[in-house]
């Protein structure tokens, strides 16, 4: 499982990086926001979808990365240490369970890759759970604080929704909070949230543009993309590629939305062949739209709260400024043709399930080494130094039960254990010590092992030739 997660992660990063490279090149010109958006969307999708089809491509070890080598080395270190203990000490289940390893021994036994994967997954779980909880709180607040929209606002919203092509007008929510107009969805109906300050201080012809912008977001299903983005951001919380991809996705999404508002709500496009007065009208409408966005920003944050220039981030206002420029000159951007979009989608969906990396199958580990890895066996003694032989596998409890019920001789007991260990060794080569311990605990609890030890004396199969054992239950 760990190897699969590791392999899938490496593959996803490679494929997502390829998409991101082309998306970055395309996005630099700012002329193809739709295609740029599609490519960045595929970057996000690739980060969260597993590879399905393997290509004979790059072997992980060629990248200088190998989980198998790490595991084998760890296993060998572990097995040598355990074999040494097995020869010279009683079985570990007879040793006080509170005995501690020194720090260096502990470090040597950690599988670094497993640790990284576990840490990453734990972080994802915490982040996703915490952010979802905050989203639920936000939703509760929205519901409790919502003011119903007036009939005038609803009528304008219905008219815009029809023009844009929405089957159903989203739920309009007005709020006293000075928050940005937004689209919000957490199941059920989509909410379009508008701050009351905008309705109060802007004319209907101004806030109409703002409402249109949010409705175009709903039309584009951007509220669904938010959840995909949320999942990718949570799973890849440590990955700068994910951070950058999400930021670029938002930037291009807003540009697409602005283009959508202008193209849907102006009479015709801004093409050079349009009549002059019509072009002038459309330019005037684009300017009104840009003005509305800027007014929203000015109204939302009162002057004393606006941060000074020194505290602005490098691109703060940069995207808004670029958006305003794009809105004023919509002919600078090219809308992707249907063919371009279809080609992009087909190319991306073809590449999405492919895996370019794989883990080469490792040769079976030497039997003399593997025979030393059975730390979980409670009756492990010098019998584990025997070579691996093929034998019948049976559950350890069944083996013990058979021993107790059938009154086997010492030699027969020894052979039963040897067969079981031989079969188990081959299956347990790749397991870490922790997994073996967990399995041992699952098989036996300490009391059960102590009880068994009373019934099957330790020396009974350490020295099968011994005939003088008076406490052995095999004696007559």
């Amino acid at each position, binding site marked *: 499982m760990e190897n699969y997660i590791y392999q899938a992660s490496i593959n996803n990063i490679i494929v997502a990086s390829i998409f991101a490279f082309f998306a970055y090149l395309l996005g630099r010109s700012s002329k193809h926001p739709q295609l740029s958006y599609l490519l960045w969307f595929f970057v996000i999708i690739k980060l969260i979808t597993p590879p399905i089809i393997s290509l004979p491509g790059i072997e992980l070890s060629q990248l200088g990365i190998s989980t198998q080598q790490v595991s084998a080395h760890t296993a060998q270190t572990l097995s040598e240490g355990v074999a040494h203990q097995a020869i010279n000490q009683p079985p570990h289940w007879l040793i006080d369970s509170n005995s501690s390893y020194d720090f260096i021994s502990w470090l040597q036994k950690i599988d670094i890759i497993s640790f990284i994967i576990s840490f990453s997954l734990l972080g994802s779980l915490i*982040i*996703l759970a915490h*952010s979802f909880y*905050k*989203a639920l*709180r*936000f939703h509760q*607040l*929205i519901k409790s*604080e919502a*003011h119903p929209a007036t009939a005038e606002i609803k009528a304008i919203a219905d008219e815009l929704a029809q023009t844009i092509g929405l089957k159903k007008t989203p739920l309009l929510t007005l*709020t*006293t*909070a*000075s*928050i*940005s*107009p*937004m*689209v*919000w969805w957490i199941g059920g109906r989509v909410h379009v949230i508008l701050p009351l300050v905008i309705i109060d201080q802007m004319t209907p012809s101004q806030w109409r543009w*703002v409402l249109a912008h949010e409705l175009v977001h709903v039309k584009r299903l951007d*509220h669904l993309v*938010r*959840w995909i*983005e*949320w999942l990718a*951001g*949570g799973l890849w*919380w440590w990955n700068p590629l994910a*951070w950058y991809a999400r930021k670029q996705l938002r930037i291009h*999404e807003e540009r697409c939305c602005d283009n959508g508002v202008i193209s849907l709500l102006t009479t015709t496009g801004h093409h050079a062949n349009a009549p002059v007065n019509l072009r002038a009208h459309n*330019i*005037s409408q684009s*300017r009104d739209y*840009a*003005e509305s*966005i*800027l007014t*929203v*920003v*000015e109204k*939302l*944050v*009162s*002057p*004393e*709260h*606006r*941060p*000074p*220039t020194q505290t*602005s981030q490098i691109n*703060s*206002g940069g995207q*808004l*400024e670029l958006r*305003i*420029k794009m809105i*004023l000159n919509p002919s600078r951007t090219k809308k992707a043709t249907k063919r371009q979009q279809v080609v992009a989608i087909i190319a991306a969906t073809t590449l999405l399930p492919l895996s370019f990396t794989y883990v080469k199958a490792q040769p079976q580990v030497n039997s003399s080494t593997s025979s030393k890895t059975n730390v979980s066996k409670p009756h492990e003694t010098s019998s584990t130094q025997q070579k691996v032989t093929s034998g019948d596998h049976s559950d350890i409890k069944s083996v013990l039960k058979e021993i107790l019920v059938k009154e086997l001789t010492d030699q027969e007991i020894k052979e039963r254990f040897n067969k079981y260990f031989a079969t188990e060794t081959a299956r347990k080569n790749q397991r870490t010590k922790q997994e073996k311990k967990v399995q041992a605990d699952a098989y036996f609890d300490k009391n059960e092992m102590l009880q068994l030890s009373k019934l099957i004396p330790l020396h009974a199969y350490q020295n099968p030739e011994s005939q003088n054992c008076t406490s052995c239950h095999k004696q007559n």
Partner: protein
Amino acid sequence: MKEKPTTLANAELTILEYLWKSAPSTAREIREGVYPDQGAAQNGTVQRLLQRLETKGFVTRKRVSNVYNFNPSLTRETYLGNQLENLASTLTEGSFAPLITHLVEKNKISSDDIKRIREILDQDQGGNN
């Protein structure tokens, strides 16, 4: 400068909820309304909560005929709106809760940025006129 709104503890919010319904009220009336079955034992609790609310600026008091009347200093909608704004700011600016599609990220726009963008619009209008 406007104080940053704070979140109230549940007990404080309960007092405030009562005042939103029944203001102006004396401390005794509040205690009888919020802790109806507990008698004078909760007088101290209600006094402490009212003091905290007053310190935080959520409640004002006025002396009327030897008793103090308490009033909420903001409406329920304003309080909830502030809570929503705080949570929205956290959600929209937080890296791990990108669940909102919003028009602008307002907190990142400086005065100079707005001024520069305004000039762009004015120049565009001048060019088209």
